[in-house]
């Protein structure tokens, strides 16, 4: 690997000051260090941000503020998170393994890179890694790549489970940059590939993620992930959903999909159709199908369309009997 310097920042200001163009912030390193070994990432400097004072989960405006340095295991085990945001705890526990969750941070989880085979192999073209070199995945191996929002430039998927739950929670990311601190709604944080897949997010160079703000939910929620083995595998498709039902009608509903696009895919069309609709399997199926009309499956990933459809219906059906906010 390329020689690099390692420095541990004592404050956010120091971290920002240490960041030059050739720098990566280092969280748990569970993805970044792998990518450095593969030569995919070749930073000249690592700035360790795990000792910054962002390692707490705090009450904030009726919701929570989750520090970027909080370990994934601690987030999933947090009593408040489990009671009020089961979708988030379930999503985190559905990711990786116990050992990796102990090491990985919330900020790093947000910023992990796609597991597309071509992206991870520096001897092959990839527009995300090497802009303009091409996308062999489109015609090559893509059975677990995108069906929604992809472009000829990139068919990668975002690998995070946690981010899918955060999408459904309307979370926003707290970012420290050159011009101070700002909040970025998750919808605006992640990008679709467009013609510049090298950028996963809208962050500017040097921006430091300091935390995630999660507003109050007030609905039952859950996360369901489908993968090729019982644990420790990336999603083929996952669904995060929150549902509020009264008198047999859907009062409110949020759905996000993982494993289908370059970012967590908020199923806005399905949500709109469901608000006010009868809380029945028929409604859920109609909405899921409407959402999937936008899908453009590739040669070998067409199975994700019925899989996502079924998973939306199943997850909403399982949520429906619960009372709002009972945390089950």
């Amino acid at each position: 690997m390329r020689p690099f310097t390692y420095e541990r920042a004592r404050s956010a200001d120091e971290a920002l000051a240490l960041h030059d163009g050739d720098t990566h912030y280092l969280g748990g390193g569970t993805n970044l260090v792998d990518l450095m070994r593969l030569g995919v990432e070749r930073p000249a400097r690592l700035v360790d941000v795990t000792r910054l004072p962002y390692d707490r989960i705090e009450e904030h405006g009726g919701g929570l503020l989750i520090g970027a340095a909080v370990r994934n295991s601690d987030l999933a085990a947090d009593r408040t998170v489990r009671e009020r945001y089961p979708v988030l705890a379930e999503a985190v526990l559905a990711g990786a393994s116990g050992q990796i969750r102990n090491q990985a941070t919330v900020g790093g989880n947000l910023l992990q890179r796609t597991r597309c085979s071509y992206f991870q192999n520096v001897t092959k073209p990839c527009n995300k890694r090497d802009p303009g070199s091409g996308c062999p995945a489109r015609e090559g191996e893509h059975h677990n790549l995108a069906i929604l929002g992809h472009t000829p430039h990139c068919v990668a998927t975002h690998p995070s489970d946690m981010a899918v739950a955060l999408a459904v929670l309307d979370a926003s990311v707290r970012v420290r940059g050159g011009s101070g601190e700002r909040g970025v709604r998750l919808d605006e944080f992640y990008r679709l590939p467009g013609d510049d897949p090298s950028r996963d997010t809208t962050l500017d160079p040097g921006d430091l993620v300091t935390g995630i703000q999660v507003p109050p939910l007030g609905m039952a929620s859950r996360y369901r992930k489908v993968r090729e083995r019982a644990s420790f595998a990336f999603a083929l498709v996952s669904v995060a959903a929150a549902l509020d039902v009264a008198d047999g009608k859907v009062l409110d509903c949020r759905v996000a999909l993982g494993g289908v696009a370059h970012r967590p895919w908020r199923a806005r069309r399905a949500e709109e159709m469901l608000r006010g609709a009868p809380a029945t399997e028929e409604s859920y199926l109609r909405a899921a199908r409407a959402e999937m009309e936008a899908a453009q499956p590739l040669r070998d990933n067409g199975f994700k369309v019925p899989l996502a459809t079924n998973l939306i219906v199943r997850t909403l059906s399982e949520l429906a009997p619960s009372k709002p906010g009972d945390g089950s």
Partner: protein
Amino acid sequence: MRPLERVEARDKVTGAARYAIEYPVEGAAHVVAVAATIGRGEIESVAAAEVLAMPGVLAVLSCENAPKLNSVDDAELEVFQSRTVSYRGQLVAAVVAETLETAREAAARLRIGYRAEQHDVHLRDGQSGFRADVDQGDPEAALAEAAVSIDETYTTPAEHNNPMEPHATLAEWNEDGLTVHDSNQGSTTVRDTLAKVFDLDPAKVRVISPHVGGGFGSKGTPRPTAVLAAMAAREVKRPVKLAFTRQQMFSMTGYRTPTIQRVRLGADADGRLSAIVHEVIEQNSTVREFTEKTAGPSRIMYRAPHRRMAHRLVQLDVPATSWMRGPGETPGMWGLESAMDELAVTMGIDPIELRIRNEPETSPEDGLPWSSRNLVACLREGAERFGWTGRRAGREGRTLTGMGVASATYPVNREPNTATARAEPDGRFTVRIAAADIGTGARTALTLIAAEALKADPGRVTVEIGNSDLPKASLAGGSTGTASWGTAVHNACEALLAELDAPIPPEGVEVTVDTKEELESQEKYARHAFGAHFVEVRVDIDTGEVRVPRMLGVFAAGRIINPTTARSQLIGGMTMGLGMALMEESTMDLEFGDYLNHDLAQYHVPVCADVRDLEAIWLDEKDPHLNPMGSKGIGEIGIVGAAAAVANAVHHATGVRVRDLPITPSRLLPSL
């Protein structure tokens, strides 16, 4: 014998057990291999000077400067002897540096110029030219006349061995010759091969391999790591350490060929087979011929007067295929046992009853009597324990449930070996043999075999293995280890005991034996282990996820030497069978010509959450025609047939017949 805990368990748990490149050596340099980035062609240039200028880089080795090596019968070991690139990912150069990090960076920067040619890596049906292994009777006519017939094609993908410890070698030259700490399945073979490659007296080569972190066949033949490390150490005149990366293990260390198997069965109205035809298409690299004998088990499993077993090897620009977890039997029993299930379903006969009806009196291959064959007993015992009778496909909410069965078999072979047994005046014994324990429990089993022959407590017996200075021994492979080494150990101990009628002198008493003659004169029998797998599956209707809550393997493998480690081996094999059934798959990149999977995140094997109630048991099988211990090998039979049992259970649960492994949601969901 009474069960014995793994004798090196404490060393392994505490980290005292050292693996190949973990040995502390003063001043060791590090070697990193460089892989070809074209699928076929010639190396035109190697820009060594650029990386030699990097601080800490000691040497660059390639076809441009490598010393001439002697050829052996595996061209994969002709490291840097040619400019030809035979497949993408082939070992084409190496960098030696002061640190591993420098070596890796230099290897990444090393520019190699190629003249690329169009590669072909796509295994497909279409070419003619089967090589028939068995042709008995007139199978085509028998199929045409059969009351019921099955004609289906079953496929398996390429599968990579992926032992936890990568292929690794620490090499050091001194006045006594070459010493390597190497991760392999047989130190004698590695010694003899290195001696030949480097033109040395075998006595000048020492291969030390007391602990090996798995091999699954991929370390059965000496690998290029050993040759490259020895070459590099000689070049830089220092000890060197070399381990292939996980990424390199998908191209440089062997794997199982994908298979395309057409299986045809013909049966009369009672389900008695008249014809079995098993025709297999497989791939071969252009560097090394290797036949996966996939149709092999169809030679002996069931009675049928008309039979044809054939293989066709398609030569492609792919990495070299090799041994992998029950080569032949494992993919072959997937095809045959799936077809048997299809025949049972078609005829409305219980799958166990169908197998019992086709039980052969003698080996269908050559008419030899069985030394013992207890397939039927395994099927009946398993059916009883598993609750097979009255099995019903079920539904619980959005989950479908079902049960499946399949037979297992593995041949019983022995290789000639030598061993030394020694008695000391203090009552201790030492047994020496260059056997290999690749995690199987071989050291422990040999301790028990020695103790029994010596009529001594196992605590008084020390077994020394894993070193080519010990009496020469065969490989840990083909499920032959315990039977082959055990024969030599048993004979040496028995001969020693016969000499211990007087007090043991201070210098001790030592006996060495060779089992070559005993093996050559053994009676002619068809010797095979048998077994049966029972599987329950749960299939999610909405997602196509298949989970296996319960799996039982019943085996008839002669006398089990050490129940503790035997159970581990058998459930380990069954777990590999689960992986083969549900997740293991290497995907060829047709555009670039290599396998896309590059790590264990992209090549799935079962994790603990996949392995639920999984149990292996065995019958008390007494077979006097095997070896002094009465044992059959158990290293591989645990995986054989397991994938078919899973697929048969999936069919029982869902009515969907999956004929292409693995059974992933992407394959199953569209049919649900």
